[in-house]
């Protein structure tokens, strides 16, 4: 009884909607076409609940068209999708970050006078490099031995060739600039005595 009551009520609303639509149809040669479309709309609006009632188990095309995801489920699915997307982005960003940090450390280690390097990289949301912070450990706090001079003619030890912090800084900044195109302002280098 409730089903019948619901159907009759829906039918009433459909009739009201269709009569309103008939009013909106513009006059002219296109009118019959629009009236046909409105007629089809009325037919499908009436047919859909009737077919639902008659054959509940049949997968009808109209039912498929009528399928609407519940608002709660839709939001949940969208939320999960967003979270998954964010996770994927974070993971990808971390991998890239690690690789770039490793690259910068490896390259900086090649600079004469550098003993050990620790790199921290900040990335833009677009994936570009934003800022690089490098902590350089040298063998001596202020003076670093780079190349040991060899004196063939004298057995006395000569003073070693020294490279100051400024030179190391310039070299690392230049290398990073050449490799990643990062301006020197965005490269921060700190020295730590080792």
């Amino acid at each position: 009884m409730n089903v019948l009551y619901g159907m009759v009520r829906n039918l009433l609303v459909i009739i009201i909607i269709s009569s309103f639509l008939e009013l909106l149809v513009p006059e002219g040669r296109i009118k019959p076409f629009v009236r046909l479309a409105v007629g089809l709309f009325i037919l499908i609006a009436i047919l859909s609940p009737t077919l639902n009632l008659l054959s509940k188990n049949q997968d009808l095309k109209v039912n498929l068209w009528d399928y609407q995801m519940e608002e709660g489920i839709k939001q949940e699915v969208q939320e999960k999708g967003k979270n998954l997307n964010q996770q994927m982005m974070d993971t990808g960003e971390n991998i890239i970050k690690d690789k770039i940090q490793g690259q910068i450390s490896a390259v900086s280690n090649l600079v004469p006078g550098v003993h050990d390097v620790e790199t921290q990289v900040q990335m833009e949301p677009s994936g570009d490099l934003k800022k690089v912070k490098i902590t350089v450990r040298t063998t001596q706090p202020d003076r670093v031995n780079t190349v040991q001079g060899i004196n063939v003619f004298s057995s006395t030890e000569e003073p070693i060739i020294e490279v100051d912090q400024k030179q190391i800084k310039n070299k690392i900044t230049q290398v990073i600039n050449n490799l990643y195109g990062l301006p020197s302002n965005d490269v921060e280098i700190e020295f730590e005595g080792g």
Partner: protein
Amino acid sequence: MEIAQVVGLALMVTIFLLILRQEKPVMAVLLSMVFSILIFILMMGKMASIISVMQELTRRAGINFFFMTTILKILGVAYLGEFAAVICQDAGEQAVAKKVEFASKIIIAVLALPIMVAILESLLELMPG
């Protein structure tokens, strides 16, 4: 009273059109187009309220809004086609007006086609054998 504004505007445009048609027919067509667009923009807000009421009614009746969207699209195509055809007829270009009507009819048929196919397939599935 918006109808007073529309009527006033329409009367003014008609007088201007009567004068312009004698002197500069091209300008008359342009004025007619501008008036059509103006009326369309003025009525846009009202149309939006009608559509929202229709949407609510459709939701209450348990009809998928997809069908309603299709019908509204068809109505939009019909109105635009009619507007363009009338403007072309006013300019004395009957052939162009016919082509616009033809295009509108085809677009409406294409939009209505999925609903028709869905009805037919459902009915065929229901029939035994």
